[in-house]
Structures are given as C-alpha cells and as structure tokens.
C-alpha cells in the first residue's frame, strides 16, 4: 500500500488526540493492567514448581482468594494454566503452554 506511511502519520496524530480525550479512562485502565500483570506474575511464579489449589495460591501470593480464582479461570481459558487432580474439595492447577502464535505480552503498553 503506497500511502500507508502518510496514513500512519495522520493516524498517529489522531490517536494522540483520542488518547488525550480519554485520558482518565486510560490512566485508570493502565494502572489496572499493571496490577493485573503483577498479580498474574505472582500466580505464575507460585505455580512454577508446584501444583496448587486456589486457597493455597492465595496464601502463597497474598492475594484475595476470589481474585486468585478469577485469574485462574482466565488463564485457564487462554491455556496458560491447566487443571490438575482434585485435592479434597479443591482442584490443583499447574502451568500450561501458552498457545502458539501468541507472544508473551511483556513489553509495556505504548502509553
């Protein structure tokens, strides 16, 4: 596409404006994302060498138990956590392989 760069220049400018108008939402969402990253990281680290239940994960990470379950459900949906065997009334969870074609979203957001 020949005029893609031109478009991009204009696009960048417009995007900047849009970011300014949505400043507050973006700031709030960004801080949530950062917190989420931290918490997800804590959960994954706790699972690095052991299979844990949700209450065990909560104890290991210091996060509220319902919050841990929320992350576990989410990470399970994206294949990053796998359900293991049951321990009493709880299931254990372990790390899984993130699906191919989905690079780890490590770099900071452009904001």
């Amino acid at each position, binding site marked *: 596409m020949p005029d893609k760069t031109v478009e991009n220049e204009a696009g960048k400018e*417009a*995007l900047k404006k*849009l*970011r300014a108008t*949505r400043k507050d*939402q*973006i700031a709030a*969402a*960004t801080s*949530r*994302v950062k917190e*989420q*990253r931290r918490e997800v990281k804590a959960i994954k680290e706790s699972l690095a060498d052991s299979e844990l*239940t*949700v*209450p065990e994960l*909560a104890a290991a990470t210091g996060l509220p*138990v*319902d919050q*841990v*379950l*929320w*992350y*576990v*459900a*989410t990470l*399970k*949906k*994206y294949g990053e956590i796998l*359900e293991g065997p*049951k321990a009493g*009334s*709880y*299931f254990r969870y372990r790390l899984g392989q993130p*699906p191919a*074609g*989905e690079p780890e*979203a490590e770099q900071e*957001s*452009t*904001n």
Partner: protein
Amino acid sequence: MGSRQNRRFDALVLGGGIAGLEAALNLAEQNFAVAVVEKDASIGGKMIRLSKVFPTLDCSSCITTPKMAAAAHHPNIALFTYCEMQTLERRGEDLVAGILQKSRYVDVEKCIGCRQCEYQCPVLVPDAEQGGFAARKAIYIPFSNAIPQKALIDTDNCILCGRCAKVCPTQAVNYFEQPEEFHLTAAAAVIATGFEAIPLEDKVQYGQGRIPNVITALQMERLLAPHGPYNRVLRPYDGMEPDSIAFIQCAGSRDQSLGVPYCSRVCCMYAIKEAMLLSGALPLADIAIYYMDIRAFGKGYEQFYQTAQAMGVNFVKGKAAYLDPGENGAVRVRYESQEATGGVQVAEHDLVVLSLGLVPAWDPQGRCLLSTGGDKFIKTVKPKTAPTLTDLEGVFVAGAAAGPKDIVDSIAEAGAAAMEASRYLSKQ
C-alpha cells in the same frame, strides 16, 4: 442523519432474543422484509446464555444457534446489532424508528472473527457473559457462539495501546469510529425486548451482592454451561467444589416490600432445572430449594418437578428470610420450617443461588407512546383474543416484554405477534 443506513422494511422487530428471532423468522417466511434491532453486540438474547433448558433438558445453545443462524442468513431479515432504538413513532401509514448504532470500533464488514486482537489485548476485564467469574479482553467477541462473530472494543477499559489494530489481518479496528444515528421505517413492529433480573443489590436481607458465594441464577447457568468460566461447578469465592447448594425462590418476586408483587413465572422451573443439572454434575452434593409455591404449570413441568423430587432435591417450604456469611465461605440461610416441630432454622450451604425476580429490560417511556401496565411491562389491550396487541397501532408485543415468560410461551407468543403483524401488513 441522512445516513446510508436509512432503510425501509415491512416490519421492525425490537429485540434479537428468542422471541424477536422467532417473530422475525415467521414474518420473513411470509416474504416480509424484517429488520431486527438488537441492543447487544450479538443476537440470541437471554436464551443463548443459558446452559440447558427445561423441561426437555436440551442444550440451550443447540436450540438457539439454529434460530440465530436462520435469522442471520435469511434473505428477508436484516440484523442491526449493537443498536438502540431511541424513538418509535407513527407517521401516517409508517412507523419510524430512530436508531442509534453504538460504536464497536471494529468495522463489521472487515472483521473476520479471528480473535487475533483479543489474544493480543493486554487488558483483563470481568466478563459479564461468564457471570463476571472469568475475564475477557478490552477488545473481544461477545461469546463463543455470538452472531455476528465480530469483535468490539470496550472503551472504558481500552488503553489505546494499538496492538489490536496492529495484528488485525483485515485492518478492521477503527479507534475513531463514531456512533451513528439513522432511521428505519416500517409499517408494523414487534416489541420483543425481554427481561432483566432485578439487581442483586435490591434485597437487603440477602446481602445486596456482598456475601461471598451468593450468586444469581443466571450466574449459575454459566457455572453449569459446558463452556462456562470454570468448565465445571465451583464456588466463585475460592474454587471449592460445593457439597451443599441452595436455591432461594421468590428473591424479589411476589414481594411487595421490593415493589415486585407479581410472580416471575420462570424461577421455579429454572431452579428445578439447575438443581437437576447440579445433581448430575455433583452427584454427592445436597441440593435444597426454598420456596413458597412450586409453580410447575406448563407442559411436562409438573412431571419434571416430580422427577427432581425423586432425584433427591430437597424442597423446603418457606421463604428464606435472611442470608449471612458463615465460616469459610459458607452461607447461612435463615428460614421458618413450617413443620410442627420446625420453627426458625439456620441452614448452612456452600453456595446459594438467588432466583431473582424479573423486570422489563426496556421502558418505552420517552421513546414511544406504548403504555405499560402496573408491573411496568408493555400493556396488552386484548389479552384474551389478541394477546399480542398493544395500544399503539401496528405495534405488537411478544415474549417477556409483556411480562415474565418461559421460552416455550415466548415462542408461541412470538408466532402470534408475527401473525397479528402480518395480518396488519396485509390489510395495508
């Protein structure tokens, strides 16, 4: 205005749930051109969000998706999703609807539903489609069997990082999209705007949503659905597999103290259904239903109720008065056992499901001249011989928009509304 979307149809159907789709299909089959206006990003309504349906226990998705697909592919039906109907007025022979197309920030013509954007988005947002129990992304396809399979952006949570636009194979993401207003004109309309559950916050005695492991029946549907948030039934508080589950009936129905004096009609049956599904998913769990009257009135319903009793579901006569958090995520239920030796009892359950009362999802006030009844649902003027007739000429009503109704009755009414509408159209 003057948008390219301004179009003329024979009939408008407001609401793309099961009633709306059934009405639209019945009209389209008679060769009328139909526009379906749906406020959500997908058609399918409440039904597509359910696990299984009573009394046949078929998988809800398996019943709904064929109707959704039939409507989506029907040459006589145009779907307008993520659209609010803001006004509906009669102008002579015509009904004119003012429609607001909300911004998806994704060009539906280009989006191929591949979800690359969703995978790349770094923001986790509680997924209302999963009862809030898992996360979705800030750009997302509403749910797995949504129609259309098109993404949208939730700007409250988008950080405008640009990744979705970068990965989109069809350049469909458009952060600058603006909402658009346009008109649809038709001769007849069917209102099929359905219901919402009363907010969990309304009932002080039941904890206003603040007691862990007190959930709504619609959330339980997600826990039971094979494609639910946990893929199994777990307590949302800590992931425990519950051993004891209770259903609280009339949580906001038949309750003048909450301003909902009427019966919500479907709760008895869905609670029984969920109880049955639970006893399948968790064969060792104790399941109790606290109720005043079991209203199993439809075809096959009473037999369904009897089967649940035979399966060991414990039906407790008495309205639960008060819920309290117990030890370790348990919920304490206070009720009066009506037996002679009963009196006030407190039972502990691992998980408590509130069968919340149903209220209308749409209020015509300020949008069109349709009247509502004392219950705020759309008023019907000839409930016996023409049960779908409203007080606005050429406008008919179907399903839960005219009072709480189960799927079977909604479908029947949708057929009737389509019949009345087509009769009206052929008079014109």
